[in-house]
């Protein structure tokens, strides 16, 4: 079955530290991959997406993610986090036009000032 695993329910880091949030998907082909962020009491916003090509994609606010077909992963990274990055981050994928997104359960990021 198609699924997304975000193994860390909660990650706590200090401001200025580097960050990696992990995401693994279960699908035999190459999906369209997304990271979304949800700030407190807000809807979800797209952070970045991967469709094809360069496996490292850049997003907003200094975030990037790297697609690995061999590892079925799409990990999110940031070189130096800010307290305002505290939010819940969701990884998702779909397999083509008009197909449903498959969502991970999210990782809650807490950045200590």
């Amino acid at each position, binding site marked *: 079955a198609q699924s997304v695993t975000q193994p860390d329910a909660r990650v706590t880091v200090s401001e200025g530290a580097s960050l990696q949030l992990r995401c693994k998907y279960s699908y035999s082909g190459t999906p369209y991959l997304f990271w979304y962020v949800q700030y407190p009491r*807000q809807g979800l916003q797209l952070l970045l997406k991967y469709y094809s090509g360069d496996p490292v994609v850049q997003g907003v606010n200094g975030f990037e993610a790297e697609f690995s077909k061999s590892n079925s992963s799409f990990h999110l990274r940031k070189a130096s986090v800010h307290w305002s990055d505290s939010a819940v981050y969701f990884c998702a994928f779909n397999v083509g036009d008009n197909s*449903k*997104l498959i969502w991970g359960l999210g990782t809650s990021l807490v950045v200590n000032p």
Partner: protein
Amino acid sequence: GGIITQTPKFLIGQEGQKLTLKCQQNFNHDTMYWYRQDSGKGLRLIYYSITENDLQKGDLSEGYDASREKKSSFSLTVTSAQKNEMAVFLCASSIDRGEVFFGKGTRLTVV
């Protein structure tokens, strides 16, 4: 840019009550979605619609009805609210390739 507007922002209902949530989008997107978000459970798809008057059941459709009478609007009805239910309902719309845009949500509390 466009926007997705959900009304109401907060909804308090009584057990057994029928409750309706509304969603409007001005992106001119064909596909719209209703998700339910519970703490620690991620997003669960209730209904989606790929065009006006189309309805497709998601994983969590039992206990809900939906209606897509216009391209720009998509409403969700909780057919019988469950006591102590608390959840956030998120409306969304999408273009091709699954990039989804979300509203800010309706927070439901059932007393």
